[in-house]
């Protein structure tokens, strides 16, 4: 004991930590406020909450600041923080029909039941970089803020409070398709407990809830990549789905009060929800009907929810014939993949010594024969 510090390992680590801590706060700019990140870097904060599997905008913003903007590192901070806390309660099941939409589009029909509500999106906006100098951008932003201040109705509409509920809680396209008898009905009545991926490792063959939970927490880029690889060919051949619903909105969360036993709404979370319509064409499938894949994740993250919905139905149809389920369950977690990749930086001189020894053994055998 005491010998430890003599070699300098700890000192070097502490010096590295001081460097990180110092450089994070030095510089000309102001302290980066959590509120600023929550408001101005909304999508980054949402992504961290989704991949961290924890809904808390302030913690996510803190993590993002501590991680210097690296979303996977920030998700790691959230999840390892979560590991230190006991799990005290479960929410009651959430009914996604209670979603109050901030945005809702239905690409499958021109005029679906309910609104096509574009909401806050840059989908139809030219991706033109604002090259004005920062002062002009700031002035323009302040002008706009002042304008909005005077036009309260617009501001409220963005919040989703000013309109009747039926517009903000539109009927699902899936309900219409069911009325038309155009989709196979896979609804089950036995209501099994969902698979908890934070308490049990999900391995193939897994339940649908295990796959959905894994994808909901997956790293966005990884999920998009699994989808794209399967669309493009190297890993299989996925059908491109038609989107039935793309929704972003607020969903109330309810727990049973420990004393009164009554359900209590404790919060609402923003989620992105997607229903993907699949054209069934397999020899063993009901080819006169469609099927539906489902995606839902924390925050506003349409790429992820769409990939999830398409992979959900693809996995269902695959029925374990390919490696698709294993890919989804085992390769999409951001912490797993990046942690293991980065572990290559650790010293490996014992294993390498063993490899060198075997290389010499092979060469010696080659020379003797």
């Amino acid at each position, binding site marked *: 004991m005491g010998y430890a510090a003599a070699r300098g390992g700890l000192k070097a680590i502490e010096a590295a930590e001081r460097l990180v801590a110092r450089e994070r706060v030095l510089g000309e700019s102001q302290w980066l406020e959590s509120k600023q990140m929550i408001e101005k870097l909304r999508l980054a904060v949402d992504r961290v909450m989704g991949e961290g599997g924890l809904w808390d905008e302030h913690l996510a913003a803190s993590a993002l600041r501590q991680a210097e903007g690296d979303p996977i590192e920030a998700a790691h901070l959230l999840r390892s923080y979560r590991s230190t806390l006991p799990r005290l309660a479960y929410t009651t099941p959430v009914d996604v029909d209670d979603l109050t939409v901030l945005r809702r589009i239905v690409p499958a029909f021109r005029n679906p039941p309910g609104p096509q509500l574009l909401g806050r999106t840059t989908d139809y906006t030219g991706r033109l970089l604002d090259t004005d100098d920062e002062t002009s951008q700031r002035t323009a932003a302040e002008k706009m803020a002042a304008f909005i201040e005077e036009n309260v109705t617009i501001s409220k509409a963005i919040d989703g409070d000013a309109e009747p509920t039926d517009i903000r809680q539109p009927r699902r396209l899936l309900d219409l398709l069911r009325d038309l008898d155009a989709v196979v009905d896979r609804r089950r009545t036995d209501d099994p407990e969902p698979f908890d991926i934070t308490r*049990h490792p999900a391995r193939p063959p897994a339940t649908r809830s295990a796959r959905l939970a894994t994808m909901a927490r997956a790293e966005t880029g990884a999920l998009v990549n699994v989808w794209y690889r399967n669309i493009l060919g190297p890993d299989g051949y996925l059908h491109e789905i038609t989107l039935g619903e793309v929704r972003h909105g607020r969903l109330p969360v309810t727990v049973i009060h420990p004393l009164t036993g009554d359900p209590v709404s404790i919060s609402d979370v923003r989620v992105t929800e997607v229903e993907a319509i699949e054209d069934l064409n397999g020899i063993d499938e009901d080819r006169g009907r469609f099927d539906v894949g489902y995606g839902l994740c924390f925050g506003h993250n349409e790429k992820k929810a769409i990939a999830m919905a398409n992979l959900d139905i693809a996995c269902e149809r695959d029925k374990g014939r390919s490696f698709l389920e294993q890919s989804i369950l085992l390769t999409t977690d951001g912490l797993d993949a990046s942690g293991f990749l980065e572990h290559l930086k650790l010293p490996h001189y014992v294993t390498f010594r063993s490899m060198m020894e075997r290389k010499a053994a092979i060469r010696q055998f080659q020379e003797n024969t």
Partner: protein
Amino acid sequence: MNTPLLQQVLDRTTPVDDSPASHLEVNFGLLDEYSKREIRRAILTAVAVPGYQVPFGSREMPVARGWGSGGLQISLAIVGPYDVVKVIDQGDDEGVNAVNLRRLIVSSTGIPESTTPEDSTLIQTRHRIPEDPLDERHTLVLQVPVPEPLRGVERDMRELARMHAEADYARMWVSLYEDKVRNGVITRTTGYPCLVNGRYVIATTPIPRWDVPRLHRSRFLALFGAGREKRIYAVPPHTDVEPLTFEDVPFEVEVTPGASCRTCSSTESFLVEIPGATAGDGGHWVCSDSDWCRRNRERLQHPSRGDRS
């Protein structure tokens, strides 16, 4: 003890400033008690069924997955207030990741640390087993990057589960046979596949073959933790651990004829090479177990002082 380090752990795991949940009190061993209990139950199963990979709900740790998160979860789940911890990486107590893991364990428990196995009860390691003989007092916790020994011969996890369940290791034997036929020697380096208790084949983490015989009928408990892959397995004391090899092909450990440690002159420890700047420049060898090397050197210099340091 170690309040500044404890504060560092808190700082690292608890985003502070304006968040409402900034009043974290770190639990003994960092993990909450429910998680520790769950991990301990998995360990008990692993001990009861030697070599069987027990699935567990691996938690996200303050170290990245692939950096000893599985070993750390085992250590934190079983550590008690009277333990003394030693952590090595490549045999070295001062490897940077060993230092980081050790201070996480120490700062979240307040237990003392040591570099000598003699003084330790809990030894967490990456890639090595200490040279000193370990016994009933010791629990060796090995960090496992890839717990599945059969992955090289089968990728489908459903099939892997079947192979283990039926003890169907035929393809592993075939791959070893093909290796021998193609290369003249079995080219497996570290993590050599071993049959445990005559039943399950395990990956011996990437410990070198040098260390494999010391798992066989050992006096200590060896626990293997794979955090990323969410598996725990065990070799209990006095359990058979037999490297897979053929009757006429002896199991070979790493040996370099003529090599000895430049620091302590040992020829009887696992040596790693310190290369010269060029191929002709010689280079030399040193013990990978740095603490054993130090004591060995002192023993040679001052024989009267005995083994203890």
